[in-house]
């Protein structure tokens, strides 16, 4: 049976209280707080984090290391890719070190992209591809006009699901697609911010009928009633609308409707249903039926059946851990700066396309070298061993993404949109050291011995390119 083998979630550390937005903009606060991407994060970097979360959760659940070489396909679904031209998925594939023959593509533009990608992943595996699995990544950092309702409603986040034939947590039993040319949210080439129109119209003539059609179609196709479903997981731009839809489609919103995480995280676009699904799976019982439905240019829904394997997913890192690590962002101006609405959060620095291309193994795949003559490690890579002098006798050495701070500082000199800039020398598990910036950390929490993880971030925009590399961040969930 093809189904979901693992999930990974990623929610940025900062939460901007809707009160803070309301105070700054004169709007009415809609309650709770929204997740805000750090200045060095975009939809791609959050997607990378979600992939590693997924990989680590798979390894935790089944005791088998995740192997990117087993992936037949990778889909990156986003309405806010950092690239308008060029795939973000190819960066992801490089970081994960996937086979070059795998199907790797972006699915851009619609909030339903993640569901479409899930359907394509399931399809790819059903067709009998020799590979075992496919990865679906859904991530959004959507831009809403300052002081708009969407600004309060939106949130940033990412999720990834590993779709496989073996070691399945929840099998896919049915899938329904409803295509429609209905613009609920859109963004033209020249628009910096997401556009929408009269809320009553798009809800009554778009969201409710299209989603209802998909849900009804799915129940009919599977030959089950709404009451047979344990949890209904739907994308919704606001919580009230999800309740309306559940009622309309014959579900009990009190008992069946899953938390859309809108109050605590926000409308994370493509990521939202997956984040919600991950939270549901963490508590699911074998045999339960789940419906997952996405929206955008129509609607799309899947019926899942939880398997006996679900018990193995117990120790997985998921939504609760990411909700727990939140830090308040107390300045609305800082939020605007992180998103380049005021000032510039990034900068131009020397870079070279040729250099970045040549060093992909080192910089994207975190691969150093080990001298075969004397065993000395080196990162960054070098040809001549500094210990024994052997020339060109190196083998690849993959660095771990986990480590411990050997020493550190909080630097107030370097220009940084979230000062001070923390830096650390980090001793990595299994050998090697990296000296890098530390992000998502309260400077008071920096200390020798702090457990950290490496996270893929944007360092700057030299040569009009996002220059991605690794930073450390405090280990999540410890």
């Amino acid at each position, binding site marked *: 049976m093809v189904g979901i083998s693992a999930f990974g979630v990623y929610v940025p550390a900062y939460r901007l209280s809707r009160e803070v937005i309301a105070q700054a903009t004169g709007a009415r606060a809609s309650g709770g707080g929204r997740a805000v991407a750090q200045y060095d994060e975009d939809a791609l970097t959050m997607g990378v984090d979600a992939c590693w979360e997924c990989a680590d959760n798979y390894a935790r659940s089944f005791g088998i290391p995740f192997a990117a070489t087993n992936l037949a396909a990778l889909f990156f679904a986003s309405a806010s890719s950092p690239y308008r031209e060029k795939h973000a998925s190819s960066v992801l594939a490089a970081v994960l070190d996937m086979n070059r023959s795998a199907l790797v593509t972006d699915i851009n533009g619609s909030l339903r992209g993640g569901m479409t990608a899930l359907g394509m992943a399931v399809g790819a595996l059903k067709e009998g591809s020799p590979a075992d699995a496919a990865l679906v990544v859904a991530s959004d950092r959507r831009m809403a006009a300052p002081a708009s309702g969407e600004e309060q409603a939106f949130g940033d986040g990412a999720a990834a699901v590993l779709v496989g034939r073996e070691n399945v947590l929840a099998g896919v039993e049915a899938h329904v697609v409803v295509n429609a040319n209905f613009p609920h949210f859109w963004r033209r080439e020249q628009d910096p911010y997401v556009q929408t129109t009269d809320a009553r119209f798009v809800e009554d003539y778009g969201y409710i009928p299209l989603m209802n059609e998909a849900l009804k179609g799915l129940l009919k196709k599977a030959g089950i009633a709404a009451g047979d479903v344990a949890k209904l997981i739907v994308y919704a731009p606001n919580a009230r609308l999800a309740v309306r839809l559940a009622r309309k489609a014959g579900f009990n919103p009190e008992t069946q409707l899953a938390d859309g995480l809108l109050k605590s995280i926000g409308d994370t676009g493509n990521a939202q249903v997956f984040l919600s699904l991950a939270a549901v799976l963490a508590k699911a019982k074998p045999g339960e039926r789940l419906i997952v439905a996405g929206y955008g240019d129509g609607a799309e829904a899947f019926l899942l059946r939880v398997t006996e394997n679900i018990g193995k997913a117990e120790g997985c890192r998921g939504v609760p851990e990411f909700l727990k690590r939140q830090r308040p962002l107390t300045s609305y101006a800082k939020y605007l700066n992180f998103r380049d609405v005021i000032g510039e959060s990034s900068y131009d*620095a*020397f870079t070279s396309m040729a250099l970045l291309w040549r060093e992909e193994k080192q*910089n994207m795949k975190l691969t150093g070298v080990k001298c075969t003559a004397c065993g000395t490690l080196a990162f960054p890579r070098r040809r001549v061993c500094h210990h024994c002098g052997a020339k060109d006798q190196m083998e690849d050495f993959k660095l771990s993404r986990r480590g411990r701070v050997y020493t550190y500082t909080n630097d107030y000199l370097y220009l940084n949109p979230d000062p001070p800039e923390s830096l650390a020398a980090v001793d990595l598990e299994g050998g090697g050291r990296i000296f890098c910036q530390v992000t998502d950390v309260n400077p008071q929490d920096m200390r020798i011995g702090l457990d950290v993880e490496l996270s893929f971030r944007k360092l700057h925009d030299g040569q009009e390119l996002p220059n991605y590399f690794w930073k450390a961040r405090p280990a999540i969930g410890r």
Partner: protein
Amino acid sequence: MSGVMKEPVAIIGVGCTKFGEHFTKSWGDLVVDATFEACADAGVELHKEVEAAWLGSYRPWIAGERNIGSPLAEALGFLYKPVTLISNICATGIDALRNACLAVSSGMYDVALAVGVEKMRDAGSRSLMLANRTDGHPLIGKGRTAPSFFASCAHRYFHEYGIGRETLAKVAVKNHHHGTLSPKANMQREITLKDVLKSPWVAEPLSVLDSTASCDGAAAAIVTRADMAKNFNPDFVKVAGIGFAVGTERNIFEPGFDFLNFKVTQTAARMAYEQAGVKDPRREIDMAECHDCFTITEILNYEDLGFAPKGQGWKLIEEGVTSLGGELPVNTDGGLKAFGHPLGASGIRMVYEVTQQLQEKAGKRQVKNARRGLAHCLGGPAAMAGVMVLERND
């Protein structure tokens, strides 16, 4: 390999501008002022007697000059002679002088000039400190600044040896006091421990007053073979030892690098001590100028230069050993901290001070019976170091 210079070398003249914010002077003006002062001190005529020059300037381009030898030829009218640009971060000046020494020792030239100069303030107050934001490898080590490296050393030093900011602050207080006795120093005011502890962070645990300030300045030295020196200046100073060691800026990625001691300094010091026959530097060196870009750096230098055992450098400052009047005064002119640190100039500025001490021209800050002095520069995140041992000629 003998590890010693072919023929002994002497310094016959030194010059130094006031260090500070020279908004009224150009890069070339500073070169002219330092060089002509050194020539006058040496009793040589620049255009007639000096045959070759080594220019130490880390980044002439930040002051509108090109990174080549010509700006020196242009400023001094030193035309159609060899001029070599040396650039080795904060160890630039001492390396320029080292090369000038090797040149006269070889016999190819009788008289050579070394000039160290940096014009930092024309490019903004934090220009050079921040240059690695825009320069260098686009990803590896991005975000590291000079203070962030030494601040990381300080945190580890605190962790290992249990000292705190108060001990570091004493280095700043000492060097500022020395600066008040030094007419050419950038900062000539006393500061208190409280001032240091209260001043704003640069990089925790280092504050503004734990750090040297960006400034402009130039220093120059004239060298010749020791056997010819007395013909120019009977009060010449002997170059007893020179060591220079270059490591890697990627040491911060080395699992074995402890952020507590620097092999580049240890190695350069060993080279210089062997040439000079120094076996116990703590007792055989009478005064030293060392690289105190930050207060912690001076303490680490004490250990690497052999003035104190590993982990005990901090005791020298606590016990007053390195203050004027102590057993081994260090940074008698105020050091980088108070005298200032225009990068390329610093190494030769140190030699200027050591020379003045050995010639008993150091005025209020004169160290009694100073017969042997040391100058030490450290470049980058302990990526390179130069050490010179100088001696009186009698």
